[in-house]
């Protein structure tokens, strides 16, 4: 059960197995989590541990009840719990990660037949469930304890995320004519400050979900995974590239949009999930482009400030279709 190959042929034999892949991915995610503990405090650690323990327990109980071989040691449940925790605000009550992981592993994965059969990313299913069920807990962000981004107009206690501020300010600038001139100048000033704060966004001195704040650490983790061929460059590059090109066309700052929100976490760690993303070259590029377009559409015109998780879930659903229509021609055929 431990050996499942999902790449397009030709298949080269390697001693890589699921457990090794999962452990490598988990290790590359640890720096981002450690940074979040430094930034937001120790409760981040408890949230992450709760999510992991709940995910592993759910996997164990499901596999016992369904009389399947218990595979909690392959690390896939640990990774699901970890990724779910990284998608939560840093100050949620502990029952949120516990319920989220239960839903992620049970409804997102085991119901469909376990690892390899889930049509969508389980951690994102968990997040979508929590988002629809307890929107208040999921959208209130604590400001970082240290080095908060000094942007005027941002409440420093509840610390709205840069993307939430961006969306709010953009609304103001669109409806300029109905508002007082002072409000408009204030919004323009805030926008300029947001757009100038690359270093803060890159290093991760901003409010946001646990695992998404530091683009730098996620980028380094992604490089390590690329070097070991655990992920391919196509999806992250196509995804982040599309977001940057589209935001440029729409007249906004592409660097701000690439570095803020969950884009790096999503593009490197969740859109590249082996089970739920295409296996062909063109399929992967199209998958990344689709995710990018949907993310920008949600960020600019959707109901939420951030659209990475929903765009990946939606593209997960068309993965079989992408694989079908981008199948390479048989040589000589």
């Amino acid at each position, binding site marked *: 059960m431990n050996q499942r190959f999902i790449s397009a042929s030709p298949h080269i034999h390697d001693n890589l197995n699921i457990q090794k892949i999962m452990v490598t991915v988990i290790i590359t995610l640890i720096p981002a989590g450690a940074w979040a503990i430094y930034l937001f405090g120790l409760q981040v650690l408890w949230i992450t541990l709760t999510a992991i323990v709940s995910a592993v327990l759910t996997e164990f109980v499901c596999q016992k009840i369904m009389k399947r071989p218990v595979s909690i040691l392959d690390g896939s449940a640990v990774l699901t719990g970890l990724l779910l925790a990284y998608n939560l605000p840093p100050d949620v009550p502990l029952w949120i990660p516990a319920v989220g992981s239960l839903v992620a592993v049970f409804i997102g994965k085991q*119901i469909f037949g376990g690892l390899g059969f889930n049509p969508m990313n389980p951690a994102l299913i968990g997040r979508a469930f929590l988002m*629809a*069920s*307890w*929107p208040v807990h999921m959208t209130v962000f604590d400001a970082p304890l240290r080095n908060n981004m000094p942007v005027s107009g941002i409440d420093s206690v509840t610390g709205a995320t840069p993307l939430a501020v961006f969306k709010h300010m953009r609304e103001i600038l669109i409806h300029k004519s109905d508002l007082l001139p002072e409000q408009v100048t204030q919004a323009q000033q805030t926008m300029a400050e947001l757009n100038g704060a690359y270093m803060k966004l890159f290093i991760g001195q901003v409010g946001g979900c646990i695992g998404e704040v530091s683009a730098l650490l996620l980028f380094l983790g992604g490089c390590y995974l690329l070097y070991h061929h655990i992920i391919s460059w196509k999806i992250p590059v196509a995804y982040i590239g599309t977001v940057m090109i589209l935001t440029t066309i729409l007249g906004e700052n592409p660097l701000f949009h690439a570095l803020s929100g969950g884009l790096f976490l999503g593009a490197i760690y969740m859109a590249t999930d082996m089970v739920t993303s295409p296996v062909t070259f063109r399929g992967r590029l199209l998958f990344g482009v689709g995710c990018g377009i949907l993310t920008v559409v949600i960020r600019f015109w959707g109901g939420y400030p951030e659209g990475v998780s929903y765009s990946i879930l939606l593209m997960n659903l068309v993965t079989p279709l992408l694989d079908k229509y981008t199948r390479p021609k048989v040589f000589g055929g």
Partner: protein
Amino acid sequence: MSFKKDLIKGIFQENPVFRLMLGLCPVLATSTSVQNALGMGSAVIFVLLCSNIIVSLVRNWVPAKIRIPIYISIIATFVTIVDLVMAGYLPDLHKSLGLFIPLIVVNCIILGRAEAFAGKNGVFRSILDALGMGIGFTLALTIIATFREILGNGTWMGVPLFGPSFEPVLLMILSPGAFITIGLLIGLLNWTDHARKIRHS
């Protein structure tokens, strides 16, 4: 024996929701609370019973080519009665069920029973069939509504079950909650059936 089977089959082996997968739209839409479910269920039982009786009575005079419009007119008559009676005596329930009362006209269960059973069988058996199917539908609707109301609202039949610290799972009373509940329940039923078959063989 056969009469008993006519009555029982709609509740278990041929449950319209869990087995035949008929009438899923009203199930998805009106299973947000047990009160709505019972209201919808009794409206369907009434319409199904009356339409099955009339369809079965006139079955020998209905030309085969225009039977569907005739069945629909018969069903629509009783739906209008339910709609007006409910609006008059149970205005709150009528308001919360809204469009789904007039939509009983196109409920696949009712037309399905007229076409598949009442149009071919006698009045007494059609009554048993209507009662069985109607009770089966109401039972399924109430089970789904029980899960959704308890989790999504923290109440059952409007009675609060948990303390004030319970934060309801909002998703369960939104439409995804209906799909997830129905899917899990059908999966559970198929799974227990499968397990029983394995044990028997």
